[in-house]
């Protein structure tokens, strides 16, 4: 798989405050990648880095195989488009904003107009071109910013928290736009979200960020605690982890790796807990079961398994997983 980005030992700090520490991170070309993480995890900073707005303090960054150099940033910035979480629109009309990127690239008036109109139509803003940006709602502003980023047809589209300010009907529309932009035109799309479900449903790949680090684990079933002698203690629960792990204050359990059973399993799975089902929900075509085992734990299973195991709210169930289903960081 061709890589749009490759980051190696990248460090970025705001003054003394480290914001990103990334050992290795790859973003595939022509696919949709979700950056998933809680607020403050460094998602926006990573997007700014990918948009070449900030430069790493240390480490190497490659864009489509070429090392990123400070003197090339203008040319590089013109190959990507960024939609900020709370975008800034320049004074003037919607059209003034949407065609700005094209104008800065020296594209002639006629072509500019045509491409801007096309971009506006794609985000459902046809007929908005003469409106003043002052009269727009938050969701409309975000779609203007999306059209503005799309109009120059960047190879990479970066979108910070696309779904935070949109109402339900526009979420579908924007999902469609992002999906088409990658799947029909072969471009790369990277978006950030703090919602696991959104990330997994729309994206081909996902990267989890936690406290400025890419953690290579889905950020569900996230616990804080202390690691001692191969056991991670959350205060309420002691979880067996691989012996090789020796440091970290956070632990996550992959919900796909959790086995549910009505009876205790006689198996090699090193973690086994008895709990009670407190929630069952459908999520992206699968069942998400929340079990209280002292801590709340989420498991993801197929709808068929949900039926055949006869799982119901309030029922007792055994929860088992391998020590290797656990990530500590």
């Amino acid at each position: 798989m061709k890589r749009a980005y490759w980051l190696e030992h990248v460090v970025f700090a705001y003054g003394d405050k480290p914001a990103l520490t990334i050992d290795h991170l790859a973003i595939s070309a022509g696919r949709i990648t979700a950056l998933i993480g809680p607020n403050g995890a460094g998602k926006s900073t990573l997007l700014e880095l990918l948009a070449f707005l900030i430069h790493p303090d240390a480490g190497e960054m490659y864009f489509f195989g070429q090392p990123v150099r400070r003197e090339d940033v203008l040319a590089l910035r013109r190959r990507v488009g960024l939609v900020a979480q709370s975008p800034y629109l320049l004074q003037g009309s919607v059209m003034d904003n949407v065609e700005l990127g094209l104008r800065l690239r020296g594209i002639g008036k006629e072509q500019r107009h045509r491409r801007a109109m096309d971009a506006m139509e794609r985000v459902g803003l046809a007929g908005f071109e003469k409106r003043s940006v002052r009269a727009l709602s938050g969701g409309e502003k975000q779609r203007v910013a999306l059209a503005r980023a799309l109009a120059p047809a960047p190879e990479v589209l970066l979108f910070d928290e696309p779904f935070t300010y949109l109402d339900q009907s526009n979420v579908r529309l924007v999902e469609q736009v992002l999906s088409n932009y990658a799947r029909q035109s072969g471009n790369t799309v990277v978006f950030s979200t703090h919602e696991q479900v959104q990330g997994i449903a729309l994206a081909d790949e996902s990267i989890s960020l936690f406290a400025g680090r890419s953690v290579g684990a889905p950020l569900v079933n996230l616990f804080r605690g202390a690691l001692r002698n191969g056991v991670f203690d959350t205060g309420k629960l002691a979880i067996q982890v691989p012996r090789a792990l020796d440091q970290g204050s956070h632990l996550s359990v992959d919900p796909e790796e959790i086995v549910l059973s009505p009876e205790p399993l006689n198996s090699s799975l090193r973690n086994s807990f008895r709990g009670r089902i407190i929630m069952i929900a459908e999520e992206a075509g699968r069942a998400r079961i929340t079990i209280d085992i002292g801590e709340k734990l989420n498991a993801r299973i197929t709808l068929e398994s949900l039926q055949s195991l006869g799982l119901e709210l309030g029922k007792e169930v055994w929860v088992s997983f391998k020590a290797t289903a656990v990530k500590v960081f």
Partner: protein
Amino acid sequence: MDYFVDSFFAALRLIFQFDPEVYRIVWTSLEISLTATVCAALLAVPAGVWSASIEFKGKRLLRRSLNASMAMPTVMIGLIFYGLFSRRGPLGELALLYTPTAVIIGEAVLIFPLIMNLAMTAVESADPRLLPTLRSLGASPAQQFGLVLSETRLALLVAVAAGFGRAIGEVGTAMMLGGNIQGLTRTMTTAIALETSKGEFELGLALGMMLLLVAFSVNWLLQSADRSAG
């Protein structure tokens, strides 16, 4: 009291009968102050926008010096340039003393820190997302500069107008460098100060009203610009 009322009506007559002397003075004033403002703004606005857009060592010191020089008494500027332009001064050969050019230079130097300081404030109080947005859209440094100018144009206009207001209303520099020469360097402020003492109270009053008119017009324009921006 009669003296004041009579003079007031005499002044109005001068204005509404288009007394050539009054209008020549008003015109000289506008010409000198406008030229000084344009010259100062051409340097101060780009300097202010530029120094506000980048981080550099000594920015605080620059800010402090600008603030300090805004408090410079106009007569001190007059005094310094008098020394430079007087015949025995280092620039004496240029024979600039008592010419409109000397007043223009003095006033431009006087209002430069004011315009630059306000221009810096204009850019610094602009939305912090402006520059990142322009950069991510692929704007070159020159394009960024142009777009920052255009996005903050109203605040910059306020800065320039404030400079003009100070130039047209000051008397120290115009008097020391211009010398109140009729038809050449006699501005509204120098005429008010000097002609009144020669007994021409009506002329002084007429010019005072014109000066207020100019000052109020500029202020009114700025307020409406501010409203349309808000």
